[in-house]
């Protein structure tokens, strides 16, 4: 098993809107963007992730949706920030350290790589392998069949597999700041009974099955 840790130390980044500003980001801040479709639970995923990060001792966490004209099936984004210190940022995330794609088909219509930092990571819900993506030579690509895992554990809403919780299990493989244990604890607090058990097992599968391109 190869564990990949975030490498955002001493990274200088140029703000996407105002390139004249050179800013040294705190090495302690990790910014994550979720791409999904309305109804897939991208916002819930971001919320659960930061709740887990908080219980792992990250004092500054933040999760927020982009509110647009979203509706079921339309492309949506959700954002998460994780830091060891209180976060004063209130703006959107333009240059994420990690991008998470809940629905592979969205990549045909949304540039999910937009702003992704050099050495940034992208986690995709797909049956494909990391090397199947032509940008795998440029970014750290990880893949997991979260849809298959959701189907296996019968995590369904209206017959449709729900991937937001399963895919959270893969994130500790990309980011050492959040543990699988905390993610599972947060999942247990969110859902009760049978559904809770199914989701916990799904996060374990997603942790075990994620493939990385190294």
């Amino acid at each position: 098993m190869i564990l990949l840790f975030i490498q955002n130390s001493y990274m200088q980044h140029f703000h996407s809107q105002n390139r004249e500003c050179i800013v040294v980001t705190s090495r302690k801040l990790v910014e994550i963007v979720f791409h999904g479709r309305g109804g897939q639970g991208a916002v819930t995923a971001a919320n659960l992730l930061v709740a887990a990060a908080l219980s792992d001792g990250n004092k500054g966490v933040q999760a927020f949706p982009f509110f647009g004209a979203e509706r079921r099936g339309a492309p949506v984004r959700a954002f998460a920030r994780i830091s060891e210190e209180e976060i004063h940022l209130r703006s959107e995330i333009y240059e994420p350290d990690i991008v998470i794609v809940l629905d592979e088909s969205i990549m045909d219509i949304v540039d999910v790589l937009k702003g992704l930092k050099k050495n940034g990571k992208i986690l995709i819900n797909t049956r494909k392998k990391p090397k199947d993506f032509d940008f795998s030579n440029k970014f750290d690509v990880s893949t997991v069949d979260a849809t298959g895992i959701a189907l296996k554990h019968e995590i369904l809403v209206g017959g449709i597999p729900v991937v937001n919780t399963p895919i959270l299990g893969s994130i500790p493989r990309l980011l050492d700041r959040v543990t699988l244990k905390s993610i599972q604890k947060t999942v247990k607090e969110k859902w009760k009974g049978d559904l809770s058990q199914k989701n916990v097992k799904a996060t374990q599968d997603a942790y075990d099955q994620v493939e990385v391109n190294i």
Partner: protein
Amino acid sequence: MTSVMIDTGNYIAAKAAVMACPDVVAAYPITPQTTLVEGIAKYLHTGEFKGEYICVESEHSAMAACIGASATGIRTFTGTSSHGLLLMHEMLHWAALARLPVIMCNINRVVGPGWNIWADENDSISQRDTGWIQFYCSSNQEIFDTVIQAFKLGEHEQVSLPVMISYNAFILSHTSMPVFVPEQKEVDDFLPKRKAKWKLEVENPITFGNIILPNEYEKVRKEMQDAQNNAKELIPTIAKDWKKRFNRFHGGLLEYYKCDDAEYVLLSMGAIGAESKVAIDNLQKNGYKVGLARVRVIRPFPTEEIIKLSKKADLIVIDRNISVGNEGVLFNEIKGALFGMSDAKVYGFIAGLGGKDVTFGDIEIMCKKAIKGKAKDHQIWYGLEEV
């Protein structure tokens, strides 16, 4: 024992409101305030909220219900946003003139048309002359702490005025952040039951809001002004008491951030006020002597503190509002406060209207323009006007 709760600004506001033990909550849902009402409904369901929830058919009725309830000497709370706040306008004057400490969260949202649900402070700024005390928050923790402090302030016998706690749509209302929540008993110790100076009682009938002749009415207004001035003293006092009890402090009328030795001070509010801290850190790292005074309260207006700031520094002001035909309200009122009292230069920027994102990079650019003398002496629409 303090516990940590992670939730959105609206749910945090609901938690704080319920912990203040209001006897009556009357509210009407409107985006993006809806989840605040939903949160209170949840606490009603679990039994944590033991007061009465009055379902109403509009915001005007919500405020009218709170006014009626408050006049019986009990504690009331409501929440609204944008057009909902504007529909309350008549009742806002009423609550303040009747000196009733109704506490309300307002989620700052754009006024339409065109239809837009994002952050903009024109809704509450346009209500600044109604006599309400107005807070602007920049984090979920500040929302929690300020809501509870607002009851103590508004109900104080030297104030007896309604208090509005505003925070930006979505940027705070729908953003999850961790918040320290004290125990109920600790809140009860800080905030005992309301003791109203007068109240409507069946056993002891009095009239209320009766005809009042010109000479007497003028005194009513003067007393409101005195009460606002009392609030100016009490806001920092209550904040310090809170700090002593809970070790959390967000500032008094202003929150000062790295202002020592500053030759320029940035004044901003709400979410931009929080983002400004990142900009100030970066600017200072690059040698710019600029600090931040985040404006937490605009009514009462922190005139004296701003004059004091201007003795040592020139001021840069960002407004997420515009009094159309004149200027951003903070810019305008700051200049008014300084007239004849200071020679400091004041640079004004309009930014973030309609919910347009204002990043630390944007704030740095605005500050640099002012510092490098590139900003003209009139207000600049950031991003729309060439400087």
